[in-house]
């Protein structure tokens, strides 16, 4: 059993860095996809959706990756706190923005994609 645990520890020490770096890159890619969505999506709500979901998820993956490469447990603890903060504020702010837009009377665009004309595609 002790041997098994030791070997698990060895394997973890071996994969820690590449795994962490890989997760960081994955998180960055998620954020990038979110940004593309913000530019490409047709109306306010879909854009907000793209921005908020990918940002929260991307930041979470980034933080997990950083936790893997972090040198000490204290850094992991700090990252956990940052994650908690992001996980609470990100969705809340998106909710507040969407809520305000909805109450202000901004209607979501519905219908087939081809039906939207060019100047309908943007929100101003």
């Amino acid at each position, binding site marked *: 059993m002790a041997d098994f645990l030791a070997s698990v520890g060895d394997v973890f020490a071996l994969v820690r860095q590449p795994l962490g770096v890989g997760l960081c890159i994955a998180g960055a890619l998620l954020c990038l996809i979110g940004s593309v969505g913000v530019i490409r999506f047709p109306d306010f709500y879909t854009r907000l959706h793209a921005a908020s979901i990918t940002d929260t998820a991307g930041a979470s993956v980034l933080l997990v990756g950083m936790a893997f490469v972090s040198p000490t447990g204290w850094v992991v603890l700090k990252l956990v706190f940052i994650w908690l*903060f992001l996980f*609470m*504020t990100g969705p*809340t702010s998106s*909710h*507040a923005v969407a*809520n*305000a837009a909805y*109450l*202000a009377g901004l209607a979501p665009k519905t219908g087939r994609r081809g039906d939207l004309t060019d100047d309908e595609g943007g929100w101003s």
Partner: protein
Amino acid sequence: MSDPVAIEIAVFNVILLAMLFVVGAAVARLRSLFAIVMLTGAYSLLSAMWFVTLDAVDVAFTEAAVGAGVSTVLMLGAMLLTSRTAKADRRWARIGPLAVVLVTGSVLIYATTDMPAFGDPFSPANSYVGADYLVMTAADIDIPNIVTAVLSSYRGFDTLGETGVVFMAGIAVALLLGFGERSLSANRARGETAPVRTETKADKSDHHVVLRVVSRILIPVIGIYALYVHFHGELSAGGGFQAGVIISVAVVLYSLVFGIAAALDAVPVAFARGLAAFGVILYAGVGFYALTQGYNFLDYDAILSHGADAAGHHGDTNTHGQHIGIILIELGVLFAVAGSITTIYYAFAGRAPEIRDEDW
């Protein structure tokens, strides 16, 4: 420049500079004031990122909290009180400013040919006083964060002046715009009695419930974080300026979510005003205490000193006096900045009737 780290930093620089340029150009071209204000906040945030790559972590912290946070809030407040769009400019009217800007820019760029290279450790700016601070801090003051040491001890007089400027700006804004009591009368003019939070059952299940719950959790956390930033200012990035701004941000959040009337209940205007004044007095008081002990103004060795020897030298190598002095004056800065920024926010927020969702 062949060093991989230097190349990495150069790549960072180029990316961030390009983003700054894009944001700046967008601000110059846009007419919607709302977009302009938000982009100015983005500009501040980008420059905060750049400060981090240039090792200025304290500055980045301040810029992110003040430039991207508080300035944006204040500009939005002023925008709501004035207008939402700028007038279209005439095309020919751009020629004059453009010519002035081009001439000024080329003169400045010509002047950079005499400047020391980027990152040169032997440039005049990096040699004399700055290097001395780096070397002497460990022996003189014995705290790791040199920026805090210089800010509050070596250049404490400077910082006293700046705290005074922030305080005076707070008072001047309050004198120009009022202390914030107006919002109550504005609500009354709408036929409502303040505070606006009505307690009907329908209102409790309203659309702001998520915001309220999350803010209720977040505001104490923000307060604790401000205190952490304050008391760790000697060990890591942070200090009284940043902590004061964060505390006032908590007040801003509270008043945005629960209404200005509730915020005025929780943190009265008179309290914020008094806090600001008390901070400046505390800071200056430490200086005068040193004077009464026969030391120079703001020389913290006066605290916990064993007096001067016969020759008038204060040969005390103990740094505890410095530590206590720094804690006291950082508290003064914290109070002054938190009080002033809160007063300024109240002045803007209290000027107009409350912002409703329907107003947008």
